[in-house]
């Protein structure tokens, strides 16, 4: 039964969040909704995983957090925005994935019909 390897995806949770933040600041639930939407609902990130990623990104200085009030319902939340360091890191990870994809792809579905 095929699914997503959590080991692999774990390395790219931060990248996914940074990608979304490139479009502008956002908050927890909105980001998780975007992840589900962009991945066509193939990957739904858990709240704890998301929080863990935020903490890491903040620690490394790739994002900043600030408190703000939502326009729709006036709820006070923590918002995140990407930093310059974050943008650089995002580019690095993009290149890294391209390289990884190239390497792994050369071993995929060899000697085995695709869709087996």
């Amino acid at each position, binding site marked *: 039964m095929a699914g997503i390897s959590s080991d692999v995806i774990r390395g790219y949770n931060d990248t996914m969040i940074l990608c979304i933040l490139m479009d502008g600041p956002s908050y*927890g639930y909105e980001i*998780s909704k975007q992840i589900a939407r962009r991945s066509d609902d193939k990957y739904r990130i*858990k*709240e*704890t995983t*998301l*929080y*863990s990623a935020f903490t890491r990104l903040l620690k490394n200085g790739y994002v900043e957090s600030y408190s703000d009030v939502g326009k729709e319902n006036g709820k006070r939340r923590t918002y995140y925005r990407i930093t310059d360091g974050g943008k650089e890191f995002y580019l690095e990870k993009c290149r890294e994935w391209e390289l990884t994809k190239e390497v792994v792809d050369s071993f995929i579905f060899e000697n085995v019909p695709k869709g087996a």
Partner: protein
Amino acid sequence: METIKNYLETMFSPLPNNAEVLRAKDELLSMMEDKYNGLMEEGMSSEEAVAKVIAECGSLDDIASELGIQEAVVQTKDVHRRNVSLEEAEAFLADSANAAIVRTTAICIFILSVVPPIIFSEVAEYTVGTVHNAFDALGAVFFFIFIATGVGMIIVENGKMKKWNFLRKEPCQLDYSVLSVIDEKYKAQEGTFTSRLAIGVCLCIVSVVPIILVDALGGLGVLEDLAGAFIFAMVAAGVGFILMASYGKGAYKTLLSTNGDTTVGGNQFDSQKDEAEYSDPTIAAIMSVYWETVLCIYLSWSFLTFNWFSTWIIWPIAAIIHALVKKLFKEEM
């Protein structure tokens, strides 16, 4: 929504009570609330939304390394904590209330046990010969009967309360929802406990008034000795009030601190620590040797003046000063 909050609180309850953990809990709650509202907007029913939010929440493992709590998470998995339900908690409180009455009565009986000898020997003064001896003996007999009754009551009550010993001996846990109910009950009763304590202390202090009055009025023979017995009666009453307050509070304290003082679950309710931390270091230094100092003052004053009948007043005054200093200078945690 309450279900989600309860779920999160229970999940976090064995973790240490520090800023990072609390921040994680708050942020997770905020995200889960947003998700719940989002799902409802999309047309899901409340129950479905709650179930989905909780199912997709994740576990402590995911955030363990970020919060530096790997040890705590592993520990909670190893230690099996006995869950205490709301019914059990309320049964415990009911039993404790009964036990409090029985134990308090027993101790009051102990204090009052010296009254029969006093009264009977007083009566015996007015008789002679065998009647005199008989009355003296009667006093002693009643003394032992009182003691035996009190001891019997305590032994029986301890037997009844034995089934609740697990609360103190085994690691237990109370769910957040149970804790809130118990805490509300406690807060409702807190006033009663405090006033009982106050009444009890006052009765003890005032207990010497009769003998002072009798003394002042020039010693009225019989009344003088009976006034002595009266002290014990008043002290018994005062101690009774103090004990009722103490036992009552103690039962709640047992329940409210089963989750551990330093964890998120246990520490949501007033710190049970009695040691206060003072904001001023000089005050802190003085207060650390407060009671020893008071003892020195008491002994020196008493030995110098030999006025033991008045010097005891230093203790209530010292207690009041201690409470004042605590109130004014205690560091707010």
